[in-house]
C-alpha cells in the first residue's frame, strides 16, 4: 500500500456535461505522440454505451475469489473511435470540410441521448471518468512484466514506460478500460492524475479546470478535507462499479436530482424521479440508497433551516477550497519550486500560506 492515497470526488448532480475537463486533459497530455485517440478523461452520457463502447461489458477486474477475470481489448475503429482529421487547408480552395475517415464511433457518441419515452420518463445524466487509481488495480495485476506501479507518496498508478513492453494485458485487466495502448511507442499509457501538476501545487487539469465545480481532490486521510468527509463521514460519495473488485479511489455523488415523470395525460407524477434507482444501484452498489437518502435529507434540511455542512461542502463557496493539496509534501521528489500556492490547504501544508509574500504566489 502507498503511504497515502490521493482521491477525487465528482458530484454528478453538478456535472453539466460540458467536457471542459476532457479538453483540458487533452491539451495537457493527450493531443500528441500516439495518444490522440485516448481520453484519459472522458464524460459519458448514461444510459449509453460509453467510451470505449460498452466498456462495462468488456471484462477485467476481479472475481469473488480475487482472481482476474477475462477481459477484452477494445478496437480503435469500432470501440474507441478513430481520431479523424480534416482537410482544413482545402477550405481556401472552396472545398467541403470532411473527416478523413467516416466517423462511426467516438468518445461522446451517445451524448444526451438517454433512454425512455419522451416526455414521460426519458432521462440521462453524465459520468465523467478518469483512471480510478485503484488500491487493487486490475491493470497492475494483469501486467506480466510487473511494469505498473502505485506511487508510494500518493497511490497514483503509473505505467513504467521504461519497462512496459506493450503486451496490453493491462487493458484487458482494467474493468474501466482506462488504460490505453500507445501505438506510436508500443507501450501502455493512462491518466496520471496530473501528478506533475500536483507536485507543483496545481490540482489535476480535469479538476482545477472543471467549470461545473464538481470535483474535489485531496488525500483520503485528511480528515478535515472534503474528500474524506464526503466519502467517509457522510458516505455520499461512492466508487463506480465497486463490484469489479479493484477498490477505486475516484468517488461519485450519485445523481439524486431529476425532474418528475409525466403520466400518459401529461400530468406530473408527484414524487417520481426519472432516474431509475435500480440503474444507480448497478453503477454505485447498494450503498447508493443511503447516499441518496442522505443528500435528499440534507437538501431538505438546508431548505428549511439554511444549515447543512454537507450542502456547504457540495456548494463549494471557494473554488480554491475544493482542492486540498500539501505544499511541502513532495518537496523531496519534485524538482523546482511550486508554481501555485492557492490549493495547498491539506493537513501537511505549512500554514504559512497566507503570509507568503505576493511574489511567491
Amino acid at each position, binding site marked *: 500500500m502507498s503511504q497515502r492515497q490521493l482521491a477525487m470526488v465528482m458530484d454528478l448532480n453538478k456535472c*453539466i456535461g460540458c467536457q471542459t475537463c476532457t479538453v483540458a486533459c487533452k491539451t495537457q497530455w493527450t493531443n500528441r505522440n500516439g495518444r490522440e485517440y485516448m481520453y484519459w478523461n472522458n464524460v459519458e452520457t448514461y444510459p449509453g454505451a460509453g467510451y470505449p463502447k460498452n466498456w462495462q461489458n468488456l471484462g477485467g477486474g476481479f472475481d469473488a475469489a480475487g482472481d482476474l477475470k477475462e477481459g477484452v481489448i477494445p478496437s480503435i475503429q469500432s470501440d474507441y473511435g478513430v481520431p*479523424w482529421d480534416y482537410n482544413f487547408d482545402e477550405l481556401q480552395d472552396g472545398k*467541403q470540410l470532411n473527416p478523413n475517415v467516416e466517423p462511426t464511433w467516438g468518445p461522446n457518441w451517445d451524448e444526451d441521448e438517454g433512454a425512455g419515452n419522451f416526455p414521460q420518463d426519458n432521462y440521462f445524466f453524465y459520468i465523467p471518468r478518469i483512471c480510478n487509481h485503484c488500491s487493487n488495480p486490475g491493470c*497492475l495485476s494483469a501486467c506480466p512484466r510487473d511494469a505498473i506501479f*502505485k506511487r508510494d507518496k500518493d497511490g497514483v498508478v503509473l505505467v513504467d514506460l521504461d519497462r512496459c513492453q506493450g503486451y496490453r494485458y493491462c487493458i484487458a485487466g482494467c474493468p474501466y478500460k482506462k488504460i490505453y495502448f500507445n501505438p506510436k511507442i508500443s507501450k501502455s499509457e493512462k491518466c496520471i492524475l496530473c501528478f506533475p501538476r500536483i507536485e507543483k501545487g496545481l490540482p489535476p487539469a480535469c479538476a482545477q479546470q472543471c467549470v461545473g465545480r464538481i470535483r474535489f481532490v485531496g488525500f483520503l486521510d485528511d480528515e478535515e478535507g472534503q474528500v474524506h468527509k464526503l466519502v467517509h463521514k457522510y458516505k455520499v460519495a461512492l466508487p463506480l462499479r465497486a463490484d469489479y473488485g479493484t477498490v477505486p479511489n475516484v468517488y461519485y455523488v450519485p445523481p439524486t436530482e431529476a425532474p418528475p415523470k409525466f403520466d400518459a395525460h401529461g400530468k406530473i407524477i408527484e414524487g417520481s424521479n426519472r432516474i431509475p434507482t435500480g440503474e444507480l444501484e448497478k453503477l454505485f452498489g447498494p450503498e447508493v440508497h443511503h447516499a441518496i437518502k442522505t443528500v435528499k435529507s440534507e437538501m431538505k434540511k438546508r431548505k428549511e433551516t439554511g444549515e447543512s455542512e454537507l450542502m456547504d461542502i457540495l456548494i463549494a463557496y471557494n473554488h480554491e477550497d475544493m482542492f486540498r493539496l500539501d505544499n511541502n509534501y513532495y518537496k523531496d521528489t519534485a524538482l523546482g519550486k511550486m508554481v501555485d500556492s492557492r490549493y495547498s490547504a491539506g493537513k501537511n501544508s505549512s500554514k504559512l500560506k497566507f503570509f507568503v509574500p505576493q511574489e511567491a504566489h
Partner: protein
Amino acid sequence: MSCEKRRDFLKLSGIAASVVASQGYLFAKTKSLSVESGMENYPNSSYTEQMYRNEFGFTYGNKEEHGYAYHCVNCQGNCAWEVWSNNGVVTRENQSARYPSINARIPDFNPRGCNKGVQHSQIMYEKDRILYPMKRVGERGAGEWKRVSWDEASQEVAQKIWDVMSDEDKGPGKLMVHAGTGLLTEGRRGAPLRFSTQLGAVRIYPASYLGDMFSGAAVAYGEGNLGCTYDFMYTVNTAVFWGGNPSVSRIPDAHFVWEGKYNGAKVIVITPEFNASAKSADLWIPIKAGSDNILAMSVIYEILKNKWYKPGFLKSFTDLPILVRKDNLKMLRRSEVEHTDDEKLHHKYEEEFYCMNKKTGSIALLPGCEGSDIKTLRLEDFGIEPELEGSWSIELHGHKVEVTTVFEMLKQSAEKFSPQNTQEITGVHPDTVKELARDIALPKVVEITTGFSLNKYFNGMMSIWNIASICGLTGRMGPYGGLNTENEFQLSGMGVLSGFNGKYNPRFGSGFVGEFIFGDGMNTFDKYFSDEDVKRAQNGMNKEEYMQVVNALLDKGTDGKESGVKPHWSPEVALIVADSKFRRNKGSDYREAFLRKTSYFAYVDTRMSETAVFADLLLPAKSHYEVWDLRTSPGYHRFTNLAQPAANLKPVGEAMDEWSMFALIAKKLEEIANKPENIDKAKIKDDPKYARDGYHDLSICYKEFTNTDEDSESEMEPYLGTDKQAVVAALENVSQYEPWTIEKMYKSGGFLQLNEKAAQTSPLYADRPYNSNEDHIYKFKPLHTISGRQTFYVDHDLYIKMGAMTNTGMLGIRPDTAAHPFVMMTPHARWSIHSNYKASRTLLRLQRGKPYIQVNREVAKLKGIEDGDEIRVYNQLGEFFAMAKVSSSCPPDGLVMEHGWEPYMYKNLKGHNEVVPTALNLLEMADGWGHLKFGGLWDGNQYAYDGAVNFEKARG
C-alpha cells in the same frame, strides 16, 4: 499469478487482435530489474515520473511569460484565462481562476471557462487560419487566390472606399464597414467601429440580425438588457429557465444554478427538448415549440384568477392603472385633455397619462411619465391612489368618453387563455401551469431567465413581453428577482475609442431588416408562407395585405429617409469583420443576392469561414492570444478581463490586429485623398446627422483615426492606432475601470473588478449579487418607457391592429402541414460559439465528426432510420443532409440540431438554413412610438425556427 492464467483471461476483439504483440515476444527484454510487486516500493519509478514532469514543464513554460486572454467571439462568457507558452509558442490555456469572492456565503466565479475556450490553443495554429492577405483571382467562391502584401491589400481596400465615397451618385451610404459578432470585445471592436463612424459607412445592429435582441423586454422596461450577475441565481427561491439551457449555453455560470438548488432553490426548465439543464431540474416542462407566449398567457391567467398579483406594486410601478379609451383603444393622453399651441409642450403632453384616483374619484395625471416634469413615481406625494379596476365615463371637451384601465384590458385579454384552453397548443397540463404560476408568484425571490431561443420564433417578442408581464404582476424587480435577459453594466467613456465627440455619428441600419433586404427576403417569404400562415400569425391579416404593409414600411425606410420606420441601406462596397453571414442568414438565396449586390467585398477574419470563402479580398486578423484587448460586457459578472499576449509570442503568419489594420487602411485612404487629382473631392458630403460639419474629410483620414489631427491634439484625445493603445486609452477614460492599469490587471490574474459606477438600475453592492431595477422600486425612479413604468400597453396603431396592444397569445407562422410535420430547432451550441470553433478538430472528435441532428427514437423507428444514418431534411425551400442522432431527448414532433455549422461542412455545401424561411413580424416592424423608436434598444429579430420540415433516410 501465473503467466498462463493471464493469457487465459485475455481475449481480443476486432482489428486490435491482428496487431497485438505476438506471444513469442513475451518477456523479451533482458532481465534488468526484479520487481516484487508494483503495489509498493517500485524500484524504477523515476524514469516515467521524470518524463511526465518534463512534459508538464514544457507545456507550463515560464510563469513570467504567460499571457492572459478570453474567447469572446460572440460568446458572452468572458472568462479570464492564463495562456501558457514555451519559447514564444502557445502550448495550452488554463483558467486564471483568481476572481475574488465577494461574499463568503456565496460561491465565487472561479474557474469560469468552457470546452471551447479550453482548446483555443489547438485551433490558433490550425490550417484554416488566414495567414496572409489574399486576393481573389478566380470566380467568387472558386477558391483561387493570390497572396499579396499588406501594402497592396490596404491600397486596394482604400481605393475601393475612395471610389465609392467620392462618387457623387453613391457616397458613404453605399459603403458598409461592419464588424460582426466574431469580434465583440470592447478594445479591438473599437477599431472597425471607429473607422465606420468616421466614414459615415453603413453598419447594422448585430443583436437584431442574430435574433438576439430582447425586443419584448424593451417593450416592457424600455431596456432589453436586464437581469442579474449569475451569482444572484444562488440566492433565489425559484429559478425559471424559459427557453434556456444554462448548462449548455451558459457553461461558466451554470454552477450557480445547481449550487442554488443545493441552497434550496427550485429550478424549473421550460424547453421543447430534454436537455442538460432539464435533466437536473426540479421541474421540466416540455412545451410545444413556439407556444411560449401562449403558455405565458396561461400563467398570467392563473395569477389574475388567484389574485397572486401585488396590487401595491401594480399601482406604483406599472402602467396597469393608466386609463384607456374604450372607443379607440388608445391611452388617454394629457394632450387630449389639455390643449396647447406650444408644439414642444404638446409633444410632452402626448406622453403623459392618467389614472382614476380613488381618493378624489376623478382622473389624475400620473407623475413620472416620459412627458412629465416630475421624475418620480412616488404617488403618495401627490395624493394619488390609482384604481386598478373599473370603467368610467369621463367628460372630454363636452363628449362622454368611456375609459377603463390597462389592467382591465389585460384581464380581458387573458380571459381566453385558461390553462384548459391552451393545453392543446402548448402541450402543458393545466396542473403544471398552476404549479408554475404558483412557483413564480408566491416565493420571495424568483428570477425568470429567458433563453435566446424565444426570439428565434416569429412571435418571440410576445413571449418575452408576456414573461416580463408575469414578473410585473408578481412585483419582481431588484431583490425580488424578475426578468433576466442579459444584464449589461454601464461603461462610460468607451466612446473614446469608437467616437468622434459628435463630429461623426454612426449610420446605423436595422439589423433584421437590413439582412432581409440584402438577401431578397421577401422572395423567400413569398415562396414559403401561405395566406393561412400569415393570417394565423398576424391576427387575421391576409398575406397580400401583410406584404403591402411591410413593403410600404420598407420603402419608407430606404436610405434612412424617414424616421418612425426601420432604416436600411443597400451598400455596394463592403468591408466586413468577423461575420459568417453566409452561414447565418436564412433561406437559400441570401448569398447569391448579397454577392450580386456588392461589387466589392473585403473580409477580415482569423480563419476561412463560409464568408471568407466568397470574399474578394481576405485580410488576416490576429486571434485572442495574439492581441491586447479588454472585455467587460455583458454583466454576468463584475469583472473586466485583459488580453495580453504571452511574452515574445511568435507571430502567426502576417496576422494583424484590427487597430493597426484599420490605421493602415486609413493611411492609404488619406494618401489617395491627398493626390492632386483627388484633393478637391476629399471632403465627402454627408447629412449632418452623420457628419456634423456636413462632410467627411478624407484628406486627414489617418490623422483623425489616430487622433493626430489638429482638433484631437488640442482636445488631448488619446493616441490610437494599435491594440495596446486602445487598451491604455480605455483604462484611462472609462471611469468604471478606475483605478486599474494593465500592470495591475496582469498581476491580479488578468482582470479588474468594476467599481460601483458600473451600476445601471440597481446599486452594485460590494458584497451582494446584482439584479436590475432596484432603483425603480426603492427610489421610485421612472423606467425609460413612455409611462415611466413597466409597460403592459402599447397603443401603436399596428399593435391595435394586431390585437396586441396588451399581452396576448399569438400562434406562430410556421406552416402546419402533414407534408412537413416537424419543427427544426437549432439552439445555441455546446460545441461552438455560433460558427466559431465549429470546425475544431478537437471538438468535432467529441461529437459526430460532421453535422448531425437529433431525431426522436420512436419516430426514427417509424421512418426506418438508425443511429448514424445519413438523413435528408427538406421542405419547399430546399434540403440538407446530416447524420441522424437517434435520441430519447428529442421531441417526436421536432428535430434538434445545435446551430453554427458552416455550409461547407455539409454535403453539397448546403447548410441547414436552406430550409429556414425568413419573415418580418409587424409587431417588431412597428416603430416611432414612445420608447419603441429604432436604435440599439428597439430594432427587431431575424427568426430561425419558423421552418416546418420533413426528413427521410438519404438514398444512395
